[in-house]
């Protein structure tokens, strides 16, 4: 059982963070998506989904602007979901466990993108020889092999030997550190949302951010309601601007 889940999560992490398929990888890297197969293997889908959703929350707004990832939600998920399930942790504790792995994963990705430059240089040589197959190997095969070496072993080992280890480590860590990590779990979403605001980059439209924020604070509307109101507001503004333009002409 723990061998099976270790093998599965190791392969999943490799496939996801090798970034195969532009938006396909972005989807399978999400804790909420991987929670389903992990739950299936471990025999408790509803709990897995709840844990996956709680971890997903931290990473909702994270955008890889310029391909620099601010956090590795995939590593956070493949390690925290199975271990939390096995140990019977509540979703809040699972988030505490996920936070450090989400940060660690960023460094693995930086390593990957540094080494990948070697394949780009190799491809230059192949291009001079007109060697199409060589370039194809540099574009897919070599980075995938490198990805396997970087991604598979740590996750496989963590899930094979991790659960007992993690539990004893978590038991030994002082309460203030655990609480500090859960505070960080509440702060990290802010980074994602700030990055997204930065990417959208429309200063004069910031009042819409404030409206969205306090609509939820004062009236406690849920996500679906916010999406409906937001869409209507956006449509109205665009339509009214059009009408104005039409009248002026």
């Amino acid at each position, binding site marked *: 059982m723990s061998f099976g889940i270790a093998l599965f999560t190791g392969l999943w992490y490799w496939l996801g963070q090798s970034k195969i398929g532009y938006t396909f990888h972005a989807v399978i890297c999400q804790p909420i998506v991987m929670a389903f197969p992990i739950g299936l293997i471990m025999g408790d889908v509803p709990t897995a989904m709840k844990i996956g959703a709680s971890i997903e929350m931290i990473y909702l707004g994270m955008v890889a602007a310029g391909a620099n990832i601010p956090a590795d939600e995939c590593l956070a998920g493949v390690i925290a979901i199975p271990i939390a399930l096995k140990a019977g942790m509540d979703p809040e504790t699972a988030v505490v466990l996920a936070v450090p792995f989400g940060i660690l994963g960023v460094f693995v990705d930086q390593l990957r993108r540094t080494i990948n430059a070697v394949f780009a240089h190799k491809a230059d040589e192949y291009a001079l020889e*007109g060697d199409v197959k060589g370039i194809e190997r540099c574009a897919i095969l070599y980075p995938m092999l490198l990805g396997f070496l970087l991604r598979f072993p740590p996750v496989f080992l963590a899930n094979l030997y991790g659960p007992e280890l993690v539990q004893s480590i978590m038991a030994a860590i002082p309460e203030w550190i655990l609480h500090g990590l859960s505070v960080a779990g509440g702060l990290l979403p802010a980074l994602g949302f700030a990055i997204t605001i930065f990417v959208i980059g429309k200063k004069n439209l910031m009042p819409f951010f404030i409206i969205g924020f306090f609509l939820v604070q004062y009236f406690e509307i849920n996500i679906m309601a916010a999406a409906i109101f937001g869409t209507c507001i956006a449509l109205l503004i665009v339509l009214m601007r059009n009408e104005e333009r039409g009248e002026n002409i």
Partner: protein
Amino acid sequence: MTDTLNNVDNSGKNKSLLSKKDINKSYLRWYLACEVSSSFERMQSLAFCYSMIPILKKLYKKKEELSKALSRHLNFFNTQGTWGTIVHGITIAMEEQKAKGEDIPDTAITGIKTGLMGPFAGIGDTLDWGTLKPIVFALAVSFGMTGSVAGAFIPFVFMVITMAVGYWLWNRGYSLGRDSVKSILEAGWIQELITGASILGLFMMGALSANFVKLDIPVVLNMAEGNELVIQEILDSIAPGILPLVVVFAIHWYLKNKGQDFGKIVLFLLAISLLGSFVGLF
């Protein structure tokens, strides 16, 4: 220059060297490989070249021509994988013209690529990553919270939409050539789409920040005569959620003025959280 190219476009249209299958194959290659070989030094250059291989192999039968074409598409390239695909479409159209014997210098092709990759990356980041992704994924989270399996499948909506948009733009870039840039960048609908998406995106960022960013100060100050001063109550009476709002704005300010070093910000947030927890502030 533009005029002569347009004329060439029209006269050469009846004898296309590339089939629909070649175009589709090259798009699929791009979708698959776009970020796989990404490196700090060259970003998506290898992926760009990889996607062009079926096209270049068909267009350039002589080895030295093929070799030159491959080298020219290994130059630095970076864009957003969905909306940037129009650049590939235009590149394919230009390569086809070149292979037909038109005088298109290498620098013209490289110039178009490097000139357009930025603007379309900006559009794609706003629409896909800034608006569509957080909304779809937030819906998935609200299902997942209840333990529903739907949470795991909703995110694939994002994948399907982006794949379709990329496919459409790729073909549009190819069939319209350089004109497609004008037709897209100057068309009213794209500006409206960006404005609308920016409004929706910012609105949702506000709603999501209110839902998911959490920071409390549970400190209670004991005042004279047994009065207690609860800091959080004072903050809430000003406006609920004022601390999370300050955090989001502070990070945004940092990103804008001090650069986008995400790692540094993450470590700083972690340090603040641990420190705050240690001294009992949070």
